């Protein structure tokens, strides 16, 4: 059973635009199995890991992620997360998880008010999550960011809880957007729902400039395979 493929569900909301990229990396690069999950459905199709990819769900109108959180699929994902299922929110996916209350905090507009697309250096702060088993603590990795609402905010209580419980998983080495405590990615208290602004799927093939993101998918697969 050791080499059985792990099934990743890739959620598609209207306006999601990194679904195909994420699917491609899971299938072609990580060598696992990917299935699309349409926002109107409630069936996760046997997914062992659910990924909410990047993009502009509902155009990012109102607030990034604010409308997507009401989708039927989100109810299923909430239940899945409560049962301990692995959920990964990338960029807009992270914003949706925040809006849905699966992760604490909220996103504000970037400090410079502009969209920023570029590679950033990140520090791996917690290497003990299901998504970061293949990284080591303190390691510096490179992944692209591409967002205009990535300025992470949380109340002082939430923020200190995050720090206390080692829920901060990635920090920017140089803060590009004003995020509190340089936060680039966080995990929930239970340790199964990760959200991050950088795009691991864009850092999964050497010719695109980095393979540091691939390990996130491989790590989640390994975790599922071994549990």
């Amino acid at each position, binding site marked *: 059973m050791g080499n059985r493929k792990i099934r990743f569900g890739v959620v598609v909301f209207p306006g999601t635009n990194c679904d195909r990229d994420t699917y491609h990396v899971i299938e072609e690069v990580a060598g696992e199995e990917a299935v699309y999950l349409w926002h109107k459905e409630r069936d996760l199709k046997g997914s062992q890991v659910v990924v909410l990819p990047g993009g502009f769900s509902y155009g990012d109108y*109102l*607030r990034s992620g*604010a409308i997507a959180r*009401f989708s039927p699929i989100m109810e299923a994902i909430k239940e899945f997360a409560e049962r301990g299922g692995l959920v990964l929110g990338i960029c807009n996916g992270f914003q949706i998880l*925040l*809006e849905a209350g699966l992760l*604490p*905090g*909220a996103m*504000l*507009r*970037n*400090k*410079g*008010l502009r969209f920023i697309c570029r590679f950033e250096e990140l520090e791996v702060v917690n290497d003990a999550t299901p998504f970061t088993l293949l990284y080591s603590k303190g390691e510096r990795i490179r992944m692209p960011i591409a967002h205009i609402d990535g*300025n992470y*905010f*949380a*109340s002082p209580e939430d923020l200190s809880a995050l720090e206390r419980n080692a829920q901060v998983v990635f920090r920017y080495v140089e803060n590009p957007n*004003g995020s509190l405590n340089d936060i680039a990615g966080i995990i929930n208290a239970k340790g199964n729902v990760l959200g991050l602004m950088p795009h691991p799927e864009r850092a999964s093939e050497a010719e695109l400039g980095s393979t540091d993101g691939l390990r996130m998918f491989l790590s989640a697969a390994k975790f599922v395979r071994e549990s």
Partner: protein
Amino acid sequence: MRAKIEVFLKPGVLDPQGETIKRALHTLGYEAIRDVRQGKVFYIEIEGEDAERTIEEVAKRVLSNPVIEDYRWEIEK
């Protein structure tokens, strides 16, 4: 009926847009301006009996994010 809902950042939440506008206004010579905060406003046409309850619900549940925002609304006519 027409309702107006204002959604604004809670005090204490940094407002990057307001900050930038304030700085720009200072550069333009409007030194008298002490502070700028930016919010959103929704003009909603609504029918039916229950309009007030609906507006309150929509403002709270959908249009604002309680982590960072407050809201207030009024019926205009």
